[in-house]
């Protein structure tokens, strides 16, 4: 993996983390105000979910060049 490609992956990871944490936080605010009587735990839950999803995406993105994709080949009886 070249350094420029690594830099692009890091940029994508950071942007993805910002969007996902913000989205989780926003949804947490909406649900906290509508259904959960302005409690704090929906905000923490949404932010944590967003962070976890971003981490998972980043992990998959960085491991992508090294993941081997194989397939099963049926043995043909001669």
């Amino acid at each position, binding site marked *: 993996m070249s350094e420029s490609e690594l830099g692009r992956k890091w*940029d*994508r*990871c950071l*942007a*993805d983390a*910002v*969007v*996902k944490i913000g*989205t*989780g936080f*926003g*949804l947490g605010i*909406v*649900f906290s105000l*509508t*259904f959960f009587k302005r409690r704090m735990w929906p905000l923490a839950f949404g932010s944590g979910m*967003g962070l976890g*999803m*971003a981490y998972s*995406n*980043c992990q998959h*993105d960085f491991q992508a060049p090294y993941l081997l994709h194989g397939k099963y080949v049926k043995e043909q009886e001669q």
Partner: protein
Amino acid sequence: MGGEYVLSDSGQEAPRDPWFLQGWKASRMFLIKGSVAGGAVYLVYDQELLGPSDKSQAALQKAGEVVPPAVYQFSQYVCQQTGLQIPQLPAPPKIYFPIRDSWNAGIMTVMSALSVAPSKAREYSKEGWEYVKARTK
């Protein structure tokens, strides 16, 4: 109990609402809240904000292009309606600080210092020993 009239808040008898109106009054707030929450969830789903990372990056870039002009237009509209004049702030100074180059240069400096540290320590201790020997003669 279950009659056609109920006591209102002022203590007077008032006709009981029909069943559909009672149901509407009881579920009105829940329907409004559910609509707001459902709309937020649908917006997130439609914009694919919780999807792959390239979609999120595109959404962030699009937001960065759309939000500042929208904020500016809204501020102009508020100025026109209220007659207030928002002072023009000067443009922020453009600071160029290459973090990557500084970090790399710092790492190389630290590693080169560590690599010459044993020989330098030997040299300085030898000089110090020569100095002490010369002073004690």
